[in-house]
């Protein structure tokens, strides 16, 4: 697979250090915890700020302008406000579940972050079942939503939670189906190897047509999984006021909010890793001079740029489209996306078997 990239993960380094001194190993764990929290917090705030600014400019507005230059500290101020707000638990709620639900949501998001290769040297753990792992843990998030809706003892919340349950579980099928296309082409479920397999070109275009179709299906299905417009039915502001998190306030609301935005990043990062080459610069197999120019930008920057582009795309959807209805949502999944996904997977398998793609090995 001849890519000259040294890849190391945090897990590997910790494992190396562990036999020598327990302290060093513990240091790595601490580093991971602090780093992850910081990363999630900063990323969440940055994404919320970006969302507000992007939304504003789509709508001929300016967005936050007051706190700091161009309002860059607005989200910081809002976060601080949320931290200090009273955490209200409704009297008739299922108290334990109500308090626990946001953590389930947050945990799913954090667990997914573990496996993402953000650059050759920034990855926490590189599992040989990376794709499977991410699919599994992101599906865990629905548990938080369901718990939140059920424990709130609010009918609107319950409606939102039920919508979320049906929606997320259905769309997981399509998302997985499109992930399998890439797994077929790259021949691995390990995310670092999937990235390396794209050294000669990204799967979105290297796999003719099926790559694009798989990308589109993945994007649509993931949007539904993270409940972004046009699939934001679980929150459905104009219908359910706030859906499953109607009864949440303060820090716990902030956790749902943060999980939602970081989820958006996880989806973008997954789309980037699988279809857009991950941290791999834009390469065309065999054109060495062109590839050399592309290599000038470090892999981390490539990853950030590509993810940012997908995030922007998701925001763009949100600020353009109306929302689907529950039955239409199901119809879209079971009658449109899933059949197309199956046909696409079959076509991809055929293409792999016969080597019908650009720059075969």
């Amino acid at each position, binding site marked *: 697979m001849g890519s000259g990239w040294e890849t190391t993960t945090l897990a590997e380094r910790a494992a190396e250090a562990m036999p020598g001194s327990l302290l060093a190993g513990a240091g790595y764990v601490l580093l991971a915890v602090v780093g992850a929290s910081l990363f999630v917090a900063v990323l969440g705030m940055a994404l919320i700020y970006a969302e507000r600014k992007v939304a*504003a*400019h*789509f709508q*001929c*507005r*300016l967005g936050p302008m007051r706190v700091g230059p161009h309002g860059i500290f607005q989200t910081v101020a809002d976060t601080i406000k949320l931290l200090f707000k009273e955490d209200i638990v409704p009297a008739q709620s299922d108290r334990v579940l109500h308090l626990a639900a946001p953590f389930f949501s947050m945990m799913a998001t954090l667990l997914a972050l573990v496996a993402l290769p953000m650059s050759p040297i920034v990855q926490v753990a590189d599992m040989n079942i990376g794709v499977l792992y991410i699919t599994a843990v992101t599906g865990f998030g629905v548990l938080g939503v369901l718990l939140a809706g059920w424990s709130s003892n609010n009918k609107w919340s319950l409606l939102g939670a039920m919508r979320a349950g049906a929606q997320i579980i259905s769309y997981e099928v399509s998302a997985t189906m499109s992930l399998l296309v890439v797994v077929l082409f790259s021949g691995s479920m390990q995310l670092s190897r999937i990235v390396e397999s794209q050294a000669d070109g990204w799967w979105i275009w290297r796999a003719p047509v099926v790559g694009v179709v798989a990308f589109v299906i993945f994007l649509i299905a993931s949007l539904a999984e993270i409940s972004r417009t046009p699939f934001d039915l679980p929150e459905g502001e104009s219908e359910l006021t706030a859906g499953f998190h109607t009864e949440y306030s303060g820090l716990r609301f902030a956790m749902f909010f943060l999980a939602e935005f970081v989820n958006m990043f996880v989806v973008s990062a997954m789309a980037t890793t699988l279809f857009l080459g991950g941290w791999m610069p834009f390469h065309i197999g065999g054109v060495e001079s062109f590839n050399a120019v592309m290599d000038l930008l470090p892999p981390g920057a490539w990853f950030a740029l590509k993810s940012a582009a997908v995030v922007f795309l998701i925001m*763009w959807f949100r600020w*353009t*489209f109306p929302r689907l209805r529950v039955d239409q949502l199901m119809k879209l999944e079971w009658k*449109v996306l899933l059949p197309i996904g199956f046909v696409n997977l079959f076509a991809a398998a055929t293409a792999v078997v016969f080597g019908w793609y650009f720059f075969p090995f």
Partner: protein
Amino acid sequence: MDVSRMNPIVAPPLRRSGFFADIVAGLRSLLQGMGITFRYFSHPSTVVTQQYPENRATLKMFDRYRMRLSLPHDENGFHKCTACRICEQACPNGSINVVSRKGAVTGKTELDRYIWRMDSCTFCNACVMACPFSCLKMNGDFECSVFDKSLLVFNLTRYAGPTSTVLMKVENPEERRKLWEPRDVYSGPLPLRGTELPGGGKTLGKPEEPARSET
């Protein structure tokens, strides 16, 4: 009813064409919509937000904007109000109380206090329209937020003496000067109908409760 005169035009039906045709047409419609939002996104000149407190210097309200009732005074501090109370009667919700008194020199009715309650005013402009002397004006001073609604009771007369025409008839300049001395801005109780005002005025209308004679 003559339907032919109506020229009715009938709504076009929304058609479905087929599985793949619908997907293609649907995706196209979505992309077109995205095109529109992106055009606004990529052209910051289309932003219409006005940064309000910062643009105070350039923000100009239209001349006719109706926000704050005023009793314009000319450069000598005179106004044209004769305390005829037509505005008070024109007001649909009793937001105006004109308090008059007998003038000390002329013996005629003159304006003492012009009390306007912005808190109950609906800015309907009826008082301005009704004024036979055109002495009232609504202006565009819209920054009126306060923490206490009693602060929205205004006395419009900076100078609450006789009108300029009456004043001009007073020969003695010393006496005239004494007449136009500014009085305090009103700071008494809210002028509910029938209550007595400091300085001996009484608001127009029937008292809502029996007037207390001892006050």
